[in-house]
């Protein structure tokens, strides 16, 4: 009994740590949503921005810019990461090449976004300007692809790893080619996990700011083409705050972002659960 009582303190502290983490999240989210939700209206989401030097106005152009850079990054990173994961899991044995690729993905995931931004600025904005249009949605999107790639690659590889070897044997044993086995049995089985990886990548792209700051331009005008500069939502929060102290617009934009991130978290969580159930045949 004495031992039990002495344990109460550490156990209470551990509970406290868990609760504290939850409380921190709730406080931040509640603060943003409480201040931001009242700002969100149809006009806020679809309206034009305020004239220069004024506050208020809509954030339509920033939503479009976020969608543009995110789509470009996904378009590039999705095939590379899924293809790369297939290569790692289905075509290589535990060789040094595999180690190198894994290590590279890990390093890539750890490179600070500002460094990726510096690179993107030099490579896409300056070097490839004739193709990207300089500061533009293309430059921003391609830079983001570097950050989405390792996340999706790792998650996709994990998903492929959970596909039982017996399923591959079963398919090959029926005379399917390796590629047929991958496309008709392995990928469909791993699909929820792969999609989860891509959604996590989208989350990263939607939330990224520093790399965008150096590559996407920052124009509040609605983009007419992907070679135009634009200002995604995250950058808008930073700009309206630091330039005009327009907290209203910042709150509203942050709330939209937070809702998007929460939706992403929720969807991935549900997907992963249904995925494990599917593999168990429920």
């Amino acid at each position, binding site marked *: 009994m004495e031992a039990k009582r002495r*344990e109460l303190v*550490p*156990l209470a502290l*551990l509970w*406290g*740590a*868990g609760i*504290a*983490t*939850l409380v*921190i*999240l709730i406080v*931040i989210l509640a*603060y*943003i949503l409480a201040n931001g939700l009242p700002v969100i209206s149809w006009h806020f989401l679809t309206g034009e921005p305020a004239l220069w030097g004024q506050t208020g106005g809509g954030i339509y152009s920033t939503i479009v810019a976020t969608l543009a850079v995110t789509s470009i990054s996904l378009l590039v990173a999705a*095939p*590379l*990461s*899924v*293809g*790369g994961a297939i*290569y790692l899991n289905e*075509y290589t044995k535990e060789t040094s090449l595999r180690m190198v*690729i894994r290590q*590279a*993905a890990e390093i*890539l995931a*750890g*490179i*600070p*976004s*500002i*460094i990726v*931004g*510096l*690179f993107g600025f*030099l*490579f896409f904005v300056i070097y490839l300007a004739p193709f990207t249009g300089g500061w533009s949605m293309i430059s921003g999107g391609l830079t983001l692809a570097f950050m989405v*790639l390792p996340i999706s690659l790792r998650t996709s590889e994990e998903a492929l790893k959970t596909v039982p070897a017996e399923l591959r044997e079963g398919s090959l044993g029926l005379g399917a*080619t390796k*590629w047929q086995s991958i496309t008709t049995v392995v990928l469909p089985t791993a699909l929820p996990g792969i999609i989860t990886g891509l959604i996590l990548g989208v989350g990263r792209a939607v*939330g990224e*700011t*520093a790399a965008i*700051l*150096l590559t996407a331009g920052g124009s509040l005008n609605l983009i007419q083409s992907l070679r135009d500069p634009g200002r995604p939502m*995250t*950058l808008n*929060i*930073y700009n309206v*705050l*630091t330039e005009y102290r327009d907290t209203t617009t*910042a709150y509203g934009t942050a709330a939209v972002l*937070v809702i998007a*991130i*929460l939706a992403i*978290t*929720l969807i*991935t*969580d549900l997907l992963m659960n249904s995925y494990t159930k599917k593999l168990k045949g429920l």
Partner: protein
Amino acid sequence: MISIKPNRAGRSLRRSATQDIKGRAIELLLLLCGISSVCAIFLIIIFIFAEGLPFLIQAGPNFLISSVWQPTDNFADGLWGIFPIIIGSLLVTVGAVAIGMPLGVACAIFLAEIAPAPVRRILVPSVNALAGVPSVVYGFFGLLVVVPWIRGQFGGFGTSVLASWLILFIMILPTIISISTDSIRAVPKEFKEGSLAIGATHWQTIRSVLVPAASSGIIASVILGMGRAIGETMAVLMVAGNSITIPNSIFAPTSTLTAQIALEMGYATGAHREALFAMGIVLFAFIMILTGLANLASRRRIAY
């Protein structure tokens, strides 16, 4: 009983050339996807170094140890000392980790060992959500809540070392929690059962068996959290105050490598811009050292 008569008419067992080529082409294509990550790293390194390294060589060690930062677009007219900025980066990082580590590790132990299933069902996605919140939103929260609070309580501007700590520690929590949780979960069940079987309580087992056995993973998580902190840009940019001086108290403003790059890239040209890329190289070096240390730490884990 229905029978299916085998039917083997004219099926050759010799492999056809087209089949070979198709298989090889697919494999090659996938290989290219696979090495894209490797190419990405090299591209980044090559471009950052090509732009920053000549400057770094020209400026020499003074770049790292001198304290005056007066950038201009030509090298001769400027003063290029980033010592205070490096100190700022380290100070901000160490403080954030000092706060984030105990909370993060405790939360990981809680998640791995104590939390009942329903609590875990809520806490795990919450930690993921914490990781998903954009850094600019943290910065925003810091600027509007934490900074005014510090200003009210302790005076000064509010934008300060302390403000950076209070925001950054939250941002590194998910890294520490998720990796530590995994490594505690990865401790073989026999260790735990062995300890419980000789009459140790749950807490004794956690303290003297599970945490030591998972220590290398926990250390790796903290180092990676450090990497996240030193590389964080937007939040720090918004709450640290961006003053290039070595702060004399935690309520004084400071600046970091990341924030300074972000701030000055907007207008830098010539030597100034090269200097910012050189700062990028310094930051990159810090990250590589931390990644290497984390790898060393987690490699030890395989030992048992």
